[in-house]
Structures are given as C-alpha cells and as structure tokens.
C-alpha cells in the first residue's frame, strides 16, 4: 500500500475514533437520552450493528471451520488471520449490543441467571462461548498446538457452534409473532446464509488485500474463493426473492404491505441500490468476470461485506415501522412513541467507535501477532 494512502487512512481513522470517543462518552455520561429509538421502535442502529458485526464474525470463522473440517490445506494460510478478524468482529458486535442495553452494567446477567425459553438468553450464551472458542483456537494455532486431528475436531465443533449461533440470531427475530415482517420460517435460514455470505466476503477481502504473501502465487485458490462468494450471493438473492415474491404474488396480506414499503417506500434506495446493486449485482459481475484478479476479488468482497450492513438495516428496522394497531401513533403524543426512526449522531458515533476500534485492533494486531508466520507449517497442516 502506498504511503500517502496509508496516511489518508490514518487521518480518517483518527477522525472516526475522535467522533466515536465523543459518542461513547455521551452514552456513558447521559445514558440513552440521546438515542432516537423509543417505545414503539425499540431496536435501532446498535441492534443493526450487532447483527452485522456478529454475522461477519460468525461467517468468517465458519470459513476456517470448513477449511479445518475438510482439511482444505491450500486455505490453511488464511486461517489464522481470519480467526483474528473474526474474534475482533465478534467482540465489537458484543460491545455494541452492550451499549444498547438500558442497563449495560447488567449485560452479564443472562449468563448467571439465564431464562432458556428466551432465544436472547441462548444467543448471549452462544455469543460468549463462540467468542471464547474462536480465541482459544486462534491461541492454540499460534502456539502451533493444533495437529491434523485436533484441527479437524475443532473444525466440526466450530461448524456446529457457528451455525447454531447464526441460526439463533435469525430466530431471535423470526420467533416474534408481533412483527409479521420478521415472523417467517425463512428467517433463521436467511440469517445463516447471510452470515456465510458476509463472512466469506470478508475472507475474500482479507485474502486479496491483506494476505498477498500467502495466496500470492496461488491464483486458483483466490479464484475458487471468489466463486464460492459468488455462489453465496446467488443463494441469498434466491432466498430474498422467495421471501418477497411469495408475499407479493397475490398482493394481499400484511407482509405484502411491509415488503412493498421496503421495495417502494421512502427508503427504497436501501434495497435497490444498497442491497441489490452494490451488495449483489456489481460484486457478482466482478467475481464472475475476474475471479482470479486480486483487485476484482478484493473490491467484490469489500462491496458485499459492507453492503451487508444495509441488508441488516433492512431486516431490523422495517419490521418495526408499522403500528401494531391502526392509529396507535396518534394515541399518545411523545417523541419516543412514534413509528419513524433515524439514528441520532450519538448512535452513529458509538457504532463508528467500535468499528474503528476493531479495524485499529486488526491492523495493529497484524503487526504484533504472528498472523502469517511459518507459512510452510501452515501449508502442510502442522505436520
């Protein structure tokens, strides 16, 4: 990377951190006074951020588990860096959701007084277990204590835990009967597919831009990874099509209204431009035409990984913007009891803080931690 590019990146990062520190301090000093979510839209940007970051973390680690479980040696070099990025994404997602709690200092209560009928309790447990698991495998990998058999076992356990955690995240929304937009059996499946897509796209991005030394001479591996991401894009688009087209076919029912609002409402551009054009069509073209090109694969991965934030936004928010009763929005006049929401600057700042901190940790960690050490050992699977 050019020195001038690095400098620009550093300046942007410092500005983001400064703004983020301001937001975090406001949240810590004044609680939730400066957030824009309320009684009728209780989940806002931080829930979107949590779903997105945790999804990235789960999806990218699932790549490693698959590589380990099926002994895909040529991708071993990507494993350590991917686990590192995954752990950071999981940690940042956890921190974002802790800031979303009305009592953030009670964030650990679900661990020692869990109510296991609640999917949120399961998600909290899986979140902590999964984060620890990723860190454990990463540490063992660094200590070179993962032989072939151990890796395989870690891989299968990881696949099981990762899919459970990802599905649980989708089920958290899908099981809520109060919101027809979420209350779909496809919810957990879409969540798993989406996490796979965003995570694998992040792996592609890291492989293309940050790990030139590892896959440098192996364009076939990069090409295959590009095709896997392409396949996942197609899968997610098909699932989305299924979700939207079924409700739209006869044009009646509550889901139809909600889906129409997403597709043709005031925020139509989020779906058509953010989710579909930037998150699917452009990357698909790039990955289809030049799967082995580092630039094309890197940009494709970047677009998918970033645009998936919009998909999460379109999952969390439209589900809440329709009143549960006609006229509820006029029944009581209060700025927190409305069905309109746009995140406040403090909400954005807190999210930016954790994302910027995560990026800083990753770039700093790459320099300090031996992420690309002993290439030969990695390539031979530790044997």
């Amino acid at each position, binding site marked *: 990377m050019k020195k001038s590019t690095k400098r620009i990146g550093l300046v942007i990062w410092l500005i983001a951190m400064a703004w983020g520190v301001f937001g975090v301090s406001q949240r810590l000093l004044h609680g939730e006074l400066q957030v824009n979510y309320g009684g009728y839209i209780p989940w806002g940007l931080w829930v979107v951020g949590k779903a997105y970051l945790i999804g990235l973390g789960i999806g990218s680690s699932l790549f490693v588990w698959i590589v380990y479980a099926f002994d895909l040696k040529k991708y071993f070099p990507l494993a350590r860096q991917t686990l590192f990025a995954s752990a950071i994404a999981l940690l940042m997602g956890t921190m974002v959701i802790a800031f979303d709690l*009305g009592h953030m200092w009670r*964030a650990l209560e679900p661990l020692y007084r869990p109510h296991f009928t609640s999917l949120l309790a399961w998600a909290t447990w899986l979140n902590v277990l999964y984060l620890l698991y990723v860190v454990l495998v990463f540490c063992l990998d660094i200590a070179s204590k993962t032989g072939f058999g151990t890796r395989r076992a870690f891989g299968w356990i990881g696949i099981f835990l990762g899919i459970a955690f990802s599905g649980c995240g989708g089920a958290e929304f899908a099981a809520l009967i109060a919101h027809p937009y979420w209350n779909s059996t496809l919810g957990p499946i879409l969540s798993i597919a989406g996490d796979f897509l965003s995570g694998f796209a992040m792996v592609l991005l890291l492989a293309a831009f940050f790990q030139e030394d590892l896959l440098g001479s192996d364009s076939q591996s990069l090409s295959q990874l590009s095709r896997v991401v392409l396949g996942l894009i197609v899968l997610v688009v098909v699932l989305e099509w299924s979700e939207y087209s079924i409700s739209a076919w006869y044009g009646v029912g509550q889901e139809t209204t909600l889906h129409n609002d997403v597709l043709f409402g005031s925020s139509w551009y989020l779906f058509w431009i953010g989710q579909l054009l930037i998150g699917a069509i452009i990357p698909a073209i790039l990955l289809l035409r030049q799967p082995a090109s580092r630039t094309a694969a890197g940009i494709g991965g970047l677009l998918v990984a970033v645009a998936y934030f919009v998909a999460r936004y379109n999952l969390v928010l439209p589900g809440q913007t329709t009143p549960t009763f006609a006229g509820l929005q006029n029944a009581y006049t209060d700025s927190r009891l409305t069905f309109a929401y746009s995140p406040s600057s403090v909400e954005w700042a807190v999210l930016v803080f954790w994302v910027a901190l995560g990026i800083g940790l990753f770039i700093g960690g790459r320099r300090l931690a031996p992420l690309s050490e002993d290439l030969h050992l990695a390539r031979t699977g530790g044997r």
Partner: protein
Amino acid sequence: MEKDRGSRDTEGPEVERAGKDRTCESVRHQTGRRELLQTIFMGAAAVACATFGLDGEARASTCSAEANLAGPLLAPKGLVEGNQLDRMRHELLLAMKKPVSKRKWVMVIDQQKCIGCRACNISCNTENNLPPGVVYRPVLSQEVGKYPNVGRVFTPKPCMHCDNPPCVPVCPVKATWKREDGVVVIDYNICIGCRNCLEACPYSARTADFGDFYGMGTPEIMPYETRPNYEYSKEWKRKPNSDDSPVGNARKCHFCLHRLREGMLPACVTTCLGGATYFGDFNDKNSLVHELLGSSRVRQLKPELGTKPSVFYLA
C-alpha cells in the same frame, strides 16, 4: 404518602354517596314532574311521527330515545344496584381476602360507554408518575364509516395481561413473569433493558424508560417529576442523569397492584368518566366482571394470536 392516598380514596366514594343520597331525595320530590314531562315528550313524538311521516331511521331514533328513558329497566342487574365503583370495590375487598392463586383479575372495557376523554390515561400517568416516552394506557381513536355516516370508536389499551403472554418467555433473565392472579409483572431490579419484551408484545403494551424528564432543557426540573412512584408497592425514585431503575427498564401497566393491595381499584377504573372500565375477580362468579363477560358483545384484541388476554372489550 400511601396512607394519604388511601384516606383520599376511602373518603372519595363516601362523599360521592352522600351527594347521591341528596340527589335521590330531590329525585323523589321531582318524580311526578319527570313523569309528566316524559308523557308530554312521548306524546309530542307520536304527533310528530303521525304529522310529518318520519322515515324508518327517525322512528328508530325516537324509539331509542324511548328506550333511554326506560334504560335502567333494561340494564344488567349489577349496574342498577347502586354505584358500580362501590360494587367493584366491595368485590375487590372480598377477592383480596382470598389467596393470590384463587383470584383472577380481569378488566372489561365498554367501548360504547367510552367517550375518549383520556381521563384513564392521565390518571395512570399521574398515579405511576410516568416520564416522557412511557405510557401504560394510551387510548386509540378510530374513525369508522364514511362521511356523512361517520362515527368514532375509542379503544383504551392497557397491558392485556395475557394468559399466554408472548413477552414472558422472551425475557433472557426472568425479569418478567405472570403472577398466579394473572397479572404480568416486571422486576425492575433484574431487567437488563434489552427491550426484547417490547418487541414480543403484539399489543405494543410495553414501553421503555429512557431517563427522560419533561423539564429537560429547561432551567429547572420541577419537583413533581422527581417524586417517587410506588409501583409494585416499592418506592422508585427517578433522578436526572441516573440509570437507577426504573430508568433503563421496560415498563407497563400492572393493574395498579400497589393500589389493589390497599383495597383500591386501579386508577384508570376510578377515574373513568363514562364508567366504561370495569375491574374485578373473574373467579368470583357473582362479580360484576363475571356478569359482564356473559355478554354477546365481548371481544378481545387479536384473539387469533392465542395470547388469551385478560382485558376484554364490550363492542
């Protein structure tokens, strides 16, 4: 403070009764005059019908006027015998003598009597000292029909205290549960403020306390905003810039459990101007609510969800 409130409440109905007795006295003296006026009115109506050939609708309205004059004869037995508040309060005292598991609190709201004054909403806010962003009993107002044939339906919407509450199993820390008497409650000291229960409630009956005060942004937060409330029979103090519970918590209607404990009806029931809100023990077969739930007008909100609400409406 509770004691003061209690004495006010016991005083209230007595004053009301004394006033009513005086009214009854004067009514007895005026009975003859009323009967005379009634006869004149009915006679005039009959002459008008015959003279101007009123259509069916107008006839119906005249007939309903007639029915109104004879209203008390057609009303349910429970509504005739004395003040309905007195009766419900008496039934409440009887219910409170029973073990918790033997009671089943229900609320009945007569939408034909509700005039949309929102007195219940205001009294609830005052009773529980609710901050901005928190509401336990909003009143929905819906226009029906098309001009010129329009009407308005009011739907006061407290927590439904469902028998199969979707908000309870979603709580990750068991901070909310359904009591044996049917009331769904929240432990403010356990709630972590994840707002999952808000999302799970199909009635939007729960809101969250974000720590707002009406006086924020003004030179002074007035003392009435910082006085404590007594929900769940505990003293809860809210202070600006503090995240002590109930700030940060999910909050909802609790059928004024703290008032029930003192033998008082929920605030929304006692302040209902139209006498449209009824409350009582459904396990008491002689109770007013039990009587009312035998009506063919009974309906529930979103019954198709299987939540089995304990709040019923008379449509």
